[in-house]
C-alpha cells in the first residue's frame, strides 16, 4: 500500500520530464496512473466490504515510535475511489482544457502530488502521517489555485486559501499532538478503541476546538467559507477536483474518521451540527446571487459540505448513512457540473450565466452531461441525487423538526441553484458569446458523461453502491451496517417532503429576481463579513510587523550592541550576585609574569587608542593591535590553533576595512558626552562581569572538565592527536557543519547586499 500512496509523488516528480517526451498525449498517459490505482482499490472491494479492512504498517521513525500505517476500510475506500476515479477524468480533461499552456508540466506535477497527498490523508491511520499529508494538500492546492500566477487575483486567492487552511492546519497539528498525548497513541484505530481516555480528559474541549479549527477551515464551513469561492480563480479542472470532489471533503473526512474517537458528546453534537447547519443554509442562499457559473457551483459545494458536516455532527445510524450516500451523490454530480462549466467557459469564452443561453443546440453532448448533473443535484428521480436526498430527509426526520426545516430549505435553494447552473445555460434562445461554441473534444466530455452515467446507473440501481456505502458508514459507526437504498420507498412522508421541496424550488427559481431583491439586505452581512475580517486581520498583522521591525531592527549598529550588552549585563549580573560567591576566587597578583603584564598593558592601551582615534585608519590599526595581543595570549596559554586562526582573522579584517575605507564618509563624532558615558558604563559592566565569571569559573571545579574526556578519547575514537581539530571535525562535527552553513549564508548575504546596492544606481 505504501507503493500505492507514494508512487504518486514519484510520478509527480517525473511528470515535467515525461511531459516533454509527448506533450500531446501527456494528459491521457498520466490519467492511466489514477485509473490503475482505482482498479487496485476496486480489486480490494470484496475484502473491505466483507469487513476485513486492509492494514499495512511500515516503520517510519522507529526511534520516536512513529509508523507509517495505512488502513483501507470502507470510509477510506469510498474516498480513495472518489480520488482516483475523478482524478482519472480530471487529468484527461485537463490535457485538453489547458492545452498549450506554457506551465502545463507544473500543473501535472502538482495535481499528481496532490492526488498522492489526498490518498495519504484518507488512508493514513497514524495521526502524524495524516497531518503531514493534510498539509501537503494545502500546499499543492496553493500552487494549483495560483496556477495563473501572472494574475493578481489568482495569487491573492491562492494566498488566502493557504492562510485560512494553513492556520487551521496549525491548530489541527496542536490538536493531533494533544490527542496523541492524552490518548497514548497516534494510531486512530487505537484511539477509537479506547475513546474514554480522550473524552474523559479535562483537555477534551480544547482538543475538539483545535480539531474543529482544522476541519472547518479545510471544508470551508461558515465563517471560514470565503476562501472556497475565491479559489475559483484556479483552472476549472482544479476546482472540480480539489475544490468540490476531494480536498474540501478532507475536513468532512477528518470529522467522520475521528467521530469514533471524539464524537458522541454534547459539545460535538451542538458545535458540529450548528456549524454545518449554518453553512448549508447561508451558502445555499449566497449561491443564488452569483452570476459566475463557477461561483454558483462553489457556494453550492460549500452548502453540501455544510450538510455533510451537520450529518456527522448528528451522528447515529441514519445520519452517517445519509452522509455517505449524499457524499457519493455529490462527488458524481458536482465534479460533472464543474467540468461542464469548464467546457462552457472554454468554448464560449464566458462563465457569466446572464450571457449564456441556448447552448443545447451547439453543445449537445455537454448539455446531456449537464442535464443529468443538474437534475441529480436538484434531487430529482431517477438520479442518484434523489436517493441521496431521500437518505438525508430520512436522517433529519428521525432527528428533530429544526434540522428538517433547515434541510428542506437548503434543498429548495439548491434545487433553484441546480437549475441556474446546469439547465439555464442550455435552454432558451441562443445568445451572443465571445467565442462561437461547439462540442469540445472527447477528452472534455468524457468526464461529465461518465459521471452522469454513474448518477443514472446508481439512481436506477441503488443496490450497486449499497455495500460500499454500508462499509463506509460502518467504519464511521464502528459496527456493521446494512443499508437498503431504493429509488421508490412507497408513498410516505419522505416523498411528500421531496414533492414540497420541488414545488418550493420551482417557486424560488421562477421568482429568483424578486427573491434576490427582497433578501438583498442580508447579503452584505454574510458575504462581506468573514472576508472583511480576514482583510482586517491581515492588515493588523502587517501593521504590527512593520511596527515591531521599526523598533527592533532600527538599523543602528550601536543600538543593537547596546541592547545586547545591556540585557546580557543585567541578567548575568543579577544571576551572578544572587547565586555566585565571589569569595571562592583564588587569585594571586604574583602569579602574573612580566611578559603577561606587558601584553595586558599593550592590549589595554590599544583599546583606549581605538576608542579615542580621530581617523578610521588609526582606529582599525589600534583594533588590530588588540586582536593580535589576544592572539598572543592564546600562544602563551598553549592554544596554537586558536592563535593561528585569530592572527589570520585579524589580518583579513584589516584587509576588509581597507576595502571599505573607500566608501566611508569623513570621520565624524556623533555621540554626545552623555551617550559616550552611557556606552562606557555598559562596556565596563560587561567587561567586569566576564572577568569575574572567568575568575570564578577557573577557581571552582564542580565536575571533572570535559577536556579530560576529549584528551582521553581523541586518539582512540577520533583517530587524531590534535584535540581541538578532533573536536571540531568529529566530536562536535555537527556544530561545525551548522557553523559553516551560517558562514556560507552570511557570505552570500554580503554578496547580495552589495550587489543590491549596486543595482540602486541603475534600474531600481
Amino acid at each position, binding site marked *: 500500500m505504501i507503493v500505492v500512496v507514494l508512487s504518486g509523488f514519484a510520478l509527480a516528480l517525473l511528470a515535467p520530464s515525461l511531459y516533454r517526451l509527448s506533450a500531446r498525449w501527456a494528459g491521457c498517459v498520466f490519467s492511466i496512473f489514477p485509473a490503475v490505482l482505482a482498479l487496485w482499490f476496486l480489486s480490494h472491494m470484496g475484502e473491505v466490504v466483507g469487513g476485513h479492512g486492509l492494514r499495512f504498517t511500515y516503520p517510519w521513525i522507529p526511534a520516536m515510535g512513529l509508523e507509517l500505517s495505512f488502513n483501507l476500510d470502507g470510509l477510506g475506500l469510498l474516498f480513495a475511489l472518489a480520488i482516483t476515479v475523478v482524478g482519472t477524468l480530471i487529468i484527461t480533461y485537463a490535457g485538453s482544457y489547458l492545452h498549450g499552456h506554457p506551465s502545463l508540466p507544473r500543473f501535472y506535477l502538482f495535481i499528481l502530488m496532490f492526488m498522492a497527498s489526498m490518498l495519504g490523508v484518507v488512508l493514513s491511520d497514524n495521526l502524524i502521517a495524516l497531518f503531514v499529508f493534510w498539509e501537503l494538500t494545502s500546499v499543492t492546492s496553493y500552487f494549483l489555485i495560483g496556477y495563473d500566477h501572472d494574475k493578481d487575483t489568482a495569487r491573492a486567492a491562492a494566498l488566502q486559501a493557504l492562510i485560512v487552511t494553513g492556520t487551521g492546519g496549525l491548530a489541527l497539528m496542536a490538536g493531533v499532538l494533544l490527542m496523541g498525548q492524552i490518548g497514548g497513541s497516534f494510531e486512530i484505530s487505537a484511539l477509537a478503541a479506547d475513546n474514554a481516555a480522550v473524552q474523559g480528559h479535562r483537555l477534551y474541549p480544547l482538543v475538539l476546538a483545535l480539531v474543529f479549527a482544522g476541519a472547518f477551515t479545510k471544508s470551508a464551513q461558515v465563517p471560514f467559507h470565503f476562501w472556497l469561492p475565491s479559489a475559483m480563480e484556479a483552472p476549472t479542472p482544479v476546482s472540480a477536483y480539489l475544490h468540490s470532489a476531494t480536498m474540501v471533503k478532507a475536513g468532512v473526512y477528518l470529522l467522520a474518521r475521528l467521530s469514533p474517537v471524539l464524537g458522541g458528546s454534547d459539545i460535538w453534537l451542538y458545535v458540529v451540527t450548528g456549524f454545518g447547519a449554518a453553512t448549508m443554509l447561508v451558502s445555499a442562499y449566497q449561491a443564488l446571487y452569483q452570476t459566475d457559473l463557477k461561483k454558483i457551483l462553489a457556494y453550492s459545494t460549500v452548502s453540501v459540505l455544510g450538510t455533510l458536516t451537520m450529518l456527522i455532527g448528528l451522528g447515529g445510524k441514519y445520519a452517517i448513512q445519509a452522509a455517505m450516500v449524499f457524499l457519493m451523490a455529490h462527488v458524481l454530480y458536482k465534479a460533472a457540473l464543474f467540468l461542464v462549466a469548464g467546457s462552457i467557459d472554454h468554448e464560449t469564452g464566458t462563465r457569466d450565466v446572464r450571457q449564456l443561453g441556448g447552448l443545447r443546440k451547439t453543445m449537445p453532448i455537454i448539455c446531456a452531461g449537464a442535464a443529468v448533473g443538474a437534475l441529480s443535484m436538484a434531487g430529482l428521480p431517477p438520479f442518484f441525487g434523489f436517493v441521496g436526498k431521500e437518505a438525508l430527509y430520512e436522517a433529519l426526520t428521525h432527528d428533530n423538526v429544526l434540522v428538517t426545516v433547515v434541510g428542506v430549505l437548503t434543498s429548495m435553494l439548491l434545487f433553484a441553484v441546480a437549475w441556474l447552473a446546469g439547465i439555464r445555460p442550455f435552454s432558451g434562445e441562443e445568445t451572443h458569446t465571445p467565442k462561437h461554441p461547439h462540442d469540445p473534444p472527447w477528452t472534455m466530455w468524457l468526464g461529465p458523461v461518465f459521471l452522469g452515467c454513474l448518477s443514472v446507473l446508481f439512481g436506477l440501481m441503488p443496490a450497486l453502491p449499497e455495500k460500499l456505502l454500508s462499509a463506509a458508514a460502518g467504519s464511521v459507526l464502528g459496527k456493521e451496517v446494512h443499508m437498503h437504498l431504493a429509488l421508490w420507498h412507497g408513498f410516505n412522508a419522505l416523498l411528500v417532503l421531496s414533492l414540497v421541496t420541488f414545488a418550493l424550488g420551482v417557486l424560488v427559481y421562477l421568482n429568483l429576481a424578486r427573491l434576490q431583491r427582497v433578501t438583498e439586505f442580508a447579503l452584505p452581512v454574510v458575504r462581506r463579513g468573514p472576508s472583511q475580517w480576514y482583510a482586517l486581520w491581515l492588515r493588523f498583522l502587517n501593521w504590527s510587523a512593520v511596527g515591531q521591525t521599526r523598533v527592533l531592527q532600527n538599523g543602528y549598529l550601536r543600538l543593537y550592541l547596546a541592547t545586547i550588552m545591556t540585557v546580557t549585563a543585567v541578567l548575568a549580573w543579577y544571576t551572578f550576585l544572587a547565586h555566585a560567591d565571589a569569595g571562592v576566587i583564588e587569585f594571586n597578583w604574583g602569579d602574573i609574569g612580566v611578559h603577561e603584564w606587558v601584553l595586558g598593558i599593550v592590549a589595554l592601551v590599544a583599546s583606549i587608542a581605538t576608542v579615542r582615534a580621530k581617523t578610521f585608519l588609526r582606529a582599525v590599526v589600534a583594533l588590530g593591535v588588540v586582536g593580535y595581543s589576544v592572539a598572543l595570549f592564546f600562544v602563551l596559554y598553549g592554544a*596554537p*590553533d586558536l592563535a*593561528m*586562526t585569530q592572527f*589570520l*582573522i585579524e*589580518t*583579513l579584517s584589516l*584587509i*576588509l576595512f581597507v*576595502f*571599505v575605507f*573607500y566608501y566611508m564618509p569623513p570621520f565624524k563624532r556623533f555621540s554626545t558626552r552623555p551617550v559616550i558615558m552611557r556606552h562606557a558604563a555598559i562596556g565596563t559592566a560587561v567587561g567586569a562581569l566576564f572577568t569575574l565569571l572567568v575568575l570564578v569559573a577557573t577557581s571552582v571545579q564542580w565536575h571533572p572538565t570535559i577536556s579530560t574526556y576529549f584528551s582521553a578519547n581523541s586518539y582512540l*575514537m*577520533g*583517530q*587524531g*592527536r*590534535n584535540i*581541538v*581539530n*578532533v573536536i*571540531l*571535525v*568529529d566530536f562536535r*562535527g*555537527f556544530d*561545525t*557543519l551548522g557553523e*559553516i*552553513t551560517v*558562514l*556560507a549564508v*552570511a*557570505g*552570500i548575504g*554580503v*554578496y547580495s547586499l*552589495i*550587489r543590491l546596492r*549596486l543595482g540602486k544606481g541603475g534600474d531600481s
Partner: protein
Amino acid sequence: MNSLILRTASRFLLILLFQFSVFLLLRGHNDPGGGFVGGLVLAAALTLYAIAYDVRSMRRFLPCRAQTIIAWGLLAAAGSGVWSMFKGQPFMTGQWAHVYFFGLDLHLGTPLLFDIGVYLTVVGVVLIVIMSLAEEVEEED
C-alpha cells in the same frame, strides 16, 4: 596597487601559501592546523594577490565562482556525514580506512573530507566578501 615588489612577491607567496594551506589542512588532525586555518591562509594569499594586481587577475586562479566553491564545501562536509548512514550508524560517525599508495600507508577518514569541506567553505566565503567589496571599488574607478 602598483608596486613591483608586492606584485613579484605575491606571485611566489601565492604558490607557497597555497602549499602551506594544504599542509595545514592535512596535518590538522594530529598537529595544529585544520581546514578553517588552512582556508583562511589560502584566502589571505589570494587577497594579497588581488591587492597587488586586481580582482580579475586573481579570479583566473579560481576554477569556478566563489558561490560554487561554497556549495562544494558544504556538500563535502554534509556528504562526509551521510557515509556512515549507509552502514546503519548515526549521521557523522567517522569512517576510517588505510589506503596503501606507492608504498605509503595513508590513514584516511571521513573527518578529512569534512575538513576539506570546511576549508572550501571558508575560502569561498572570504573570497565572496572580498571580491564583492573590491570589485565595486574597481568598477567605480
